[in-house]
């Protein structure tokens, strides 16, 4: 079927979509009021600057529905070729998935299982190390609603929500009046620990400037202070923060009724990675000897938390899972996409809603450009450009319904604004899965 034959809403009728969900960042704010004129969103009430640019820039582009080696082809032909590529591979990898619905994520996992492939998501290059740390020391967790209603002490570590999650402060963590915080911001103490004095620092009561790559040492110093261990004042040389400031911070943490540490990729992307995060999670756990304390990762993409959840409840592990032996094996560093590509192991890739050709290391990109790939993306990207088979897909949340998980693991439904002539990721993946099964059963 060509794209012209698919239904398109050509009317210029004005429509208001209430309680729509923004899927640009992990806050997935579900209080959007969208004004839709035909195939265009013209107003996005309640959206932040990032949300507005998300809603205003996802109109329908004039791309072919499917291509093989850059040439437009009918949808069925592209599905056939995609199935052939994935079935012929001995080490196929599935990657991406943080910007699509959980319904589509589920089908991607099923495909990977049928072909004995490796499933990984953008989590591995975002909070993957946090996922490893959760397994190592556990996660003292809470919902954003609890933070809103209870947290009188909020510590942001290695993150910049003022720029990455603009409504986090106003909706959940800093400004809102909560059940136990009737005066909102005035009832909270806010601290930032970061190597850069970002815009987030301006919204805080205290800012501690950390020397790069000393998060681990700082977290352990704080754990030591909290436990009454004598910490060497030389800690200032290592972390850049004087010991008395750290002692003061620990007293404030102990005095809190409900404290929370929200951490970002300053921890997970810097040398130490999961060890950094483990130290911070252990600090939050330790603090429960004195008061109630939790730690939450700030998740970036709209449904990256869904990707972790769906991969975890399907395979038992959150990312980097190999299904080649008929049972799941988890091993970051072995089955994660940066590695399977940089080492030249993967011999075909199914990539959904992500752009590794822009974000990955040189050796990983070089290898990816040499192997056959099936790519699903609503927009043209460096990865879509090199795809053997490329599908233009409908944008989740704007064109397709479904479920996404907020950064605190709460599932949120999507309310689409207008119909797209393109198919959803779920529909495209289901077509590929069906064809793969037909071919596998025919070969029995």
């Amino acid at each position, binding site marked *: 079927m060509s794209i012209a034959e698919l239904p398109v809403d050509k009317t210029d009728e004005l429509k208001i979509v209430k309680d729509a969900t923004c899927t640009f960042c992990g806050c997935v704010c579900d209080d959007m009021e969208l004004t839709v004129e035909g195939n265009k969103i013209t107003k996005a009430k309640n959206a932040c*600057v990032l949300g507005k640019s998300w809603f205003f820039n996802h109109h329908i582009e004039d791309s072919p529905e499917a291509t093989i080696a850059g040439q437009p082809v009918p949808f069925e032909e592209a599905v056939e070729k995609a199935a052939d590529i994935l079935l012929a591979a001995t080490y196929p990898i599935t990657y991406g998935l943080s910007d699509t619905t959980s319904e589509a994520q589920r089908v991607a996992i099923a495909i990977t299982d049928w072909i004995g492939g490796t499933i990984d998501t953008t989590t591995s*290059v975002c909070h993957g190390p946090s996922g490893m740390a959760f397994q190592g020391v556990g996660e003292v967790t809470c919902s954003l609603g609890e933070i809103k209603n209870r947290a009188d002490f909020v510590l942001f570590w290695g993150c*910049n929500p003022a*720029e990455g999650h603009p409504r986090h402060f106003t909706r959940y963590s800093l400004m809102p009046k909560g059940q136990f915080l009737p005066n909102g911001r005035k009832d909270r103490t806010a601290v930032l620990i970061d190597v*850069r*004095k970002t815009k987030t620092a301006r919204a805080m009561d205290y800012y501690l400037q950390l020397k790069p790559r000393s998060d681990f040492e700082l977290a352990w110093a704080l754990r030591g202070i909290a436990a009454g261990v004598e910490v060497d004042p030389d800690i200032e040389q290592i972390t850049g923060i004087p010991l008395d400031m750290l002692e003061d911070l620990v007293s404030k943490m102990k005095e809190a009724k409900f404290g929370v540490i929200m951490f970002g990729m*300053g921890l997970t992307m810097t040398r130490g990675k999961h060890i950094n995060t483990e130290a911070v999670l252990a600090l939050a756990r330790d603090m429960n000897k004195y008061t109630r304390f939790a730690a939450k990762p700030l998740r970036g993409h709209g449904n990256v938390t869904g990707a972790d959840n769906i991969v975890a409840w399907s395979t038992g592990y959150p990312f980097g899972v190999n299904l080649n032996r008929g049972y799941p094996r988890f091993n970051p560093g072995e089955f994660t996409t940066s*590695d399977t590509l940089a080492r030249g192991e993967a011999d075909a890739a199914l990539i959904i809603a992500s752009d590794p050709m822009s974000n990955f290391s040189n050796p990983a990109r070089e290898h990816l450009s040499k192997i056959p790939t099936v790519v699903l993306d609503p927009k043209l990207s460096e990865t879509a450009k090199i795809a053997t088979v490329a599908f233009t897909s409908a944008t989740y949340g704007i064109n397709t319904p479904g479920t996404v998980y907020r950064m605190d693991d709460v599932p949120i439904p999507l309310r689409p604004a207008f119909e797209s002539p393109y198919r959803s990721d779920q529909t495209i993946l289901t077509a590929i899965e069906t064809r793969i099964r037909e071919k596998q059963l025919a070969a029995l």
Partner: protein
Amino acid sequence: MAEEFILIPGRTSKQGTTLNEGKYTDGYLEEISTLQICEQDMQRLGLSDGDQVRMWNEIGEVTVPCKTSKGDELPPGLLFISYGMWSSALMGGDTQGSGMPDSKGLDVFLEPA
């Protein structure tokens, strides 16, 4: 002469908004290719906003325009660039068994181009 710095790639709100406008728009490409340097380091290196600088490590090399970082956002010795193709060019493939390549806190050399 080249000096050693620590590079922190990260997100900015302009990177986020221009990303939605499109990865091939001038706004996005400008945002992800501009290196931020603190005022003291700019002065010491004799750099003005818009000057080209060469930045490299054992992985790769890029030549990009620089600009003075706002206020006291960056301490001396630290550089900032928005995530994108240029930051990726300096990122190695090794993940030390974690799945995550070193993507922040990269040791780099810098000199005016």
